[in-house]
């Protein structure tokens, strides 16, 4: 038993955090100045888009490595569709045994609680990047369906300025590969929930990190605001929930490839339930520590809040996870 990153995983974390810091977003101006395609190419060159491709039966890297990358990219607010595209779409293609070029994104239900089914495509939302040209969904028979978009995406609907959600556009529909067994879909869902949760932990950690640094510099009443017990305790409470969230995410990420899918899904729902229960408060606490400046567009605090709001809902909020956990543990409807 060793519930922490090993030295290789720590090295991966360090590498991706360095990259993320270099290519990520630190203020609204960066959103216009920085080219996300550039960041994407760097991820590609580092092989980070390939982690869930299969080398034989096993993926090139496990859920833990994916968690490390997702968390580090969120830490840096790198505006690329890493989770939907490089992780979740790639994993779906692998499970359906399709050798295929990269796929841009996923087609989600309008309430973001999961993959769209083939009936409701007109209301569905695309979770992906601006260059997404095809998206994946599942039909009733658990067969993968690819929707190749006939025109470019436009008008990002996402509240999160660093992740895209788009109205779907017309296109050609085709079924792909073999039907995916229910158990493998559970494991895929576990991967989705744990990776989204990892993203949320990355956001929270970076947000608090910045606020603490600020609290050491900002002077009020002749002393750093970070020396007031009220601010210290707000930061401490936030830190506790973030580290607790991280603990759940580690286990969930590890389970993806290492336990039976039912256990992995329960662990992933546990992580998502907890992250969803603390992320908004954590980023609000950060805005509070920043005081006035944290309420403005020019300051990155709201970037974290926005990403936390989206993450909270993707694949189901706390209530949705708790309902499923209760069904697993207590039985009944």
């Amino acid at each position: 038993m060793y519930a922490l990153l090993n030295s290789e995983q720590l090295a991966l974390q360090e590498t991706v955090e360095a990259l993320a810091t270099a290519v990520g977003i630190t203020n609204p101006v960066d959103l216009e100045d920085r080219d996300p395609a550039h960041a994407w190419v760097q991820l590609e060159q580092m092989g980070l888009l390939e982690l869930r491709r299969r080398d034989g039966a096993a993926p090139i890297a496990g859920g833990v490595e994916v968690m490390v990358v997702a968390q580090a990219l969120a830490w840096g607010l790198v505006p690329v569709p890493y989770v939907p595209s490089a992780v979740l779409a790639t994993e779906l293609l692998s499970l359906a045994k399709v050798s295929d070029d990269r796929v841009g994104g996923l087609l989600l239900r309008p309430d973001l609680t999961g993959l769209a089914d083939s009936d409701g495509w007109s209301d569905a939302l695309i979770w992906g990047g601006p260059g997404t040209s095809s998206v994946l969904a599942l039909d009733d028979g658990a067969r993968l369906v690819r929707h190749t978009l006939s025109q470019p995406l436009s008008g990002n609907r996402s509240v999160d300025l660093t992740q895209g959600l788009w109205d779907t556009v017309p296109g050609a529909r085709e079924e792909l590969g073999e039907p995916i067994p229910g158990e493998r879909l559970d494991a895929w869902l576990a991967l989705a929930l744990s990776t989204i949760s990892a993203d949320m932990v990355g956001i929270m950690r970076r947000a608090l990190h910045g606020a603490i640094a600020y609290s050491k510099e900002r002077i009020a009443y002749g002393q750093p605001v970070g020396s007031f017990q009220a601010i210290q305790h707000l930061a401490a409470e936030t830190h506790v929930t973030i580290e607790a969230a991280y603990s759940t995410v580690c286990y969930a990420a590890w389970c993806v490839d290492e336990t039976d899918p039912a256990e992995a899904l329960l662990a992933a729902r546990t992580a998502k339930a907890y992250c969803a229960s603390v992320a908004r408060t954590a980023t609000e606490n950060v805005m509070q520590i920043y005081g006035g400046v944290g309420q403005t567009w020019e300051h990155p605090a709201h970037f974290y809040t926005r990403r936390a709001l989206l993450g909270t809902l993707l694949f189901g909020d706390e209530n949705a996870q708790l309902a499923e956990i209760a069904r697993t543990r207590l039985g009944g409807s």
Partner: protein
Amino acid sequence: MDYRDSAEEAEYRAGLRAWLADNVPPGHQNATTQDDRAAVAHAWHKKLYEGGYIGQSWPVEWGGKGLSPAMDAILNEETGNFNAPPLPGTAGYIGRALQMYGTDEQRTQLLPPTISGDIHWCQGFSEPSAGSDLAALRTRAVRDGDEYVVNGHKMWTSGGQYSDWCLLLARTDPDVPKHKGISAFLVDMRSPGITVQPIVLADGSPETSEVFWDDVRIPANQRLGDEGEGWRIAMTTVSYERGPSDIGFISTYRKNLAELEETAAKKGLTDDRETQARLARAYVLGEVLRLNVLQQLSLRISGRPPGEEGSISKQLWTHTEQELQHLALDLFGADVVTGRRPDYLHRYFMSRPISVYGGSSQIQKNIIAQRLLEMPRK
């Protein structure tokens, strides 16, 4: 104890309701840009003035109606019931500052147009490095003959772009303890050297402004109160600003809750027990605030000026509004994060700074503990 209208109050309410039925501008809710909202607010101020509904509890000699503070509460309640635009809050508290500290000349010059809505005011208090610790402000006003020359940078000057006059705090004496070296000024916003820039809030909407002061010259007779009296004037002013009843919060809250209830009903959520409970809880919190404000208003009716108990209302107001926006996110979050309800996103981000401005929640708790509960300072 009697929550019922007195005969006088009932008569006032009846007259007001008749007037509102005829005068609330239709469609004013469609004003969503800052410019449009300012235009609605200014027009509404004029209309209220024409109807005799500005300065209800001010002395008659200063253009008020000399009525009981209870009429302010009725005005608030009924404008809410009629879905009217928000009441002009700034006129209220700046008017009080003028009444309490102004010279006859200042009062004569500025009170009538403030009441009539011919001029609008902003507040030049906060600075980039003086927020909660307002007394740390650095903007300097240096006496030069019959004038003061002002240099500095003010933040969170709400309505700065739409204001004709500013109540400014600036340091006139850097050599005395920080609270004692501050003076207050009444400044014409058209004075050369004033630059107003919008501050864009977290949701992307311009909501307030920052104001740069470069060698702005203010006639010395536009100083409000004595030199060094600025801190006391600011604190009095702020105490009238703090109450949620003064800023039309309760009526807005009720409107927003009713709208959430409608949205929930449209989505078929009102059969859901948890949604029911959460909407009922939001109603309870709104009532808690309303009833607490009525008690504080009763203190004023009985002649007590606003005191530290305003911090209690401020805390309740903060909690109530932030919880309402949390509820909106919890019920309709998918609509919010996918851009279908930008109004809810706007309200959510607007609810966050309530715990920061007008004295942060941390400051309010200090006040409650140290002044109301008399707990020891370190």
